[in-house]
């Protein structure tokens, strides 16, 4: 029992943080603990969840991707760009059949991920810097395509998945669940997933063991961009519009979800279950603060302090585990 607990301490510490937050909000607000609000939280974390799935791969190899939100924005705008917009939307868009619009948008996401991967593994630019550049490139693509305008139309499929529901369950929650499930499956049960952990655990050792480290790193960067792209398309449908900078908050939220969940920034430790807990910590925090009556400007600070506390708890949990 003790060994079991110790081994899972990195996952248990954020879980305690989560339960603690839930307890606080339940006692502080009668409107927090309702079925409706639980459904709200699920919906609110879904887009972050899709981005965080890809980011979990990236962070497990001890790399980072700062371009996730910006790539999401660019791909979301791109799918709108390929869809016929109303006459009053002053965008020189290129309307295509819905299937092609989606295909091109996904290919663009893969291409952006490919450029990042090339920069990181072939040229040797640290991912922190490379994705900082990609963040700007994504913002530039977004800006050029909409030119300060707002687009509203997206292909029907994207619209359904982003804002529709089936049997009362929002499609976006189903998609997010699917992404997390597939991500977890790949990381835990496939050979590729094992390599991701080994490369993150000790890159040099993985190389001496004959693992093609560059290929693995390139793959996770592309997976990260793909997840961001999908999140961007569905996000446009979820919010009902495509415009510049609409995803900016998702960069911090997705990184925070992965790291607060207990996945190590140094690579090799953590995984999708951690990310799921992290997503709920973030979702409960963001949602719960809206249910309590405090100065809305103070909430931003409180949110920061609670995230800091969660990280401190994680660090101590890892220390206990190491001893």
């Amino acid at each position, binding site marked *: 029992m003790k060994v079991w607990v110790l081994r899972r301490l990195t996952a248990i510490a954020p879980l305690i943080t989560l339960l603690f937050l839930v307890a606080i909000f339940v006692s502080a607000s009668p409107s927090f603990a309702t079925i409706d609000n639980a459904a709200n939280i699920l919906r609110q974390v879904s887009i972050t969840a899709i981005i965080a799935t890809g980011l979990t791969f990236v962070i497990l190899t001890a790399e980072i991707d700062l371009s996730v939100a910006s790539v999401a924005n660019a791909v979301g705008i791109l799918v709108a760009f390929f869809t016929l917009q109303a006459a009053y939307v002053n965008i020189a868009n290129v309307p295509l059949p819905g299937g092609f619009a989606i295909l091109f948008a996904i290919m663009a996401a893969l291409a952006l991920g490919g450029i990042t991967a090339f920069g990181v593994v072939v040229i040797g630019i640290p991912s922190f810097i490379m994705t900082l550049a990609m963040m700007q490139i994504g913002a530039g693509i977004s800006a050029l395509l909409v030119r300060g305008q707002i687009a509203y139309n997206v292909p029907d499929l994207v619209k359904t998945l982003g804002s529709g529901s089936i049997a009362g369950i929002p499609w976006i929650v189903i998609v997010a669940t699917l992404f997390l499930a597939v991500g977890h499956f790949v990381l835990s049960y*496939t*050979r590729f997933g*094992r390599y991701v952990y*080994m490369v993150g655990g000790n890159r040099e*050792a993985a190389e*001496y*063991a*004959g*693992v093609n*480290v560059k290929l693995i790193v390139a793959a996770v960067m592309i997976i990260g961009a793909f997840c961001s792209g999908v999140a961007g398309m569905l996000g446009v449908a979820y919010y009902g519009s495509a415009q510049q900078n609409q995803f900016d908050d998702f960069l911090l939220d997705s990184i925070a979800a992965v790291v607060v969940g207990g996945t190590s920034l140094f690579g090799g430790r953590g995984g999708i279950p951690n990310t799921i807990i992290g997503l709920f910590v973030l979702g409960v925090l963001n949602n719960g603060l809206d249910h309590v009556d405090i100065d809305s400007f103070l909430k931003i600070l409180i949110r920061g302090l609670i995230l800091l506390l969660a990280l401190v708890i994680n660090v101590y949990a890892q220390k206990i585990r190491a001893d």
Partner: protein
Amino acid sequence: MSDGSERPPLIELSGIGKTFGGVTALSNVDFVLREGEVHGLVGENGAGKSTLMKIIAGVHTEFEGSYRLDGQPVRLRSTRDALARGIGMVHQELSIVPHLSVAENVFLGNQPVSSLGVVRWRHMAREAEAHLKNLGIEVDPTVEAGSLSLGLQQLIEIGRVLFSGARIIILDEPTSALSPPEVERLFQVIDRLRQGGKSFIFISHFLDDVLAISDTVSIFRNSRHVRTAPAAELDKGQIIELMIGRGHEELEESYLGTLELPPASTAPTLLEVRGLTLKGAFEELDLAVHEGEALGIYGFMGCGQLELVRALVGKLKADRGTLVIGGVERRLANTAAGKRAGVALVPESRRSMLFADSPIYRNISISVLERISRWLVKPVAERQLAREKIEELRIRAGSETVALRTLSGGNQQKVALARWLAYRPNVLVLAEPTRGMDVGAKDDVVKIIRALKEQKMGVIVVSTEPETVLSLADRILVMRRGRFTREFVAEAVGKDQLLAAA
């Protein structure tokens, strides 16, 4: 070389003893360094010379015996304390900061500042240039130190140590990475400083260099001082004999005797290298490994052997030369390509080959995952494989699922071997395979390698320890400063011959 005994002793050590956790590193050692003297220290790895030098330089502050400096007993508290008293040290791994200028490196830690606290750059550059010129080193003080040759960087470090007030300089393996002209220049600088009254302790494996520059040579063996004599009265053969010790008292401990190497292998060639060159590491290397043969490569630290083994498996790319594996010429893009071609390396450092936090079975199965599973991992099969290897190699571990870091060093090393035994490459390259192992574990490695040879695998063993190469190899290449200097095949060879060739 003048008669040093006339001059007063600067450093006088007597009855020095030092133990580390019950293991004796130095026992009852006497040592005298005089003013204006270059004193060579020689001995095998582990003979005690580095412990002695660390005591002199204030690294080890706890020891038995007396330490007198300028005739007064001293108790050094730290290396900083030692430097304040005029004792400086230049390590084999230089502490030059590559991105700072030559002048900044010379002044490192005590840059001249104006009354406003601003660094006086021009003053610093002028001072540094004049100071280095005084030593006979002509160099632009404003260039980045890292852009200079290794030889120049070393001279600049010597300059810095002198500049911070040292009159006694300890040089640890100063010539191992230098080209012959650079060695020549280093000796000129040392000679000039010696005439100016500075003293040197010169620690080296390169006996020719020691004899060329030293006034006096002290020889160490098995934690003991065996002899000190003027360099003029010694020759290389004598020194090697004193270092290895032919006396019967240490016979079992350090002297393996000569070994009769088997005749040259006529089995098919598995791997062949021709004219392999990597600038700054090794040049024009030719070697071949045959089926069921263990090739030993012996050389001192820094002779280029670690780069060579990396070039063989695709970790490093050579500038020139050809690599033929299994009859096919290859350009290995990475270690994955090397592995597919059938060449694998167990590197010299455990940290760079093992996943400390991962379970043992994942450390072993990593090399063969693609055989065990196409898409999905099969932990049951992996653990089965790990259990087999644990038993086969007699790895002491509670279970195959415990984290690797819970194992002892020798057992971790065996896990690295187990990984490649599972893969069965055609050629297995082992760098320092027995480093840090106890006698029992070393014996196990000998047996493992014998078994590999019987399975027709080719083995390359690279080591800085003659015993390791002698106990494992069928044929021995000696490497010196990036080149092979001698090949021992089908003949009797002993430690002394290896040392003499390196």
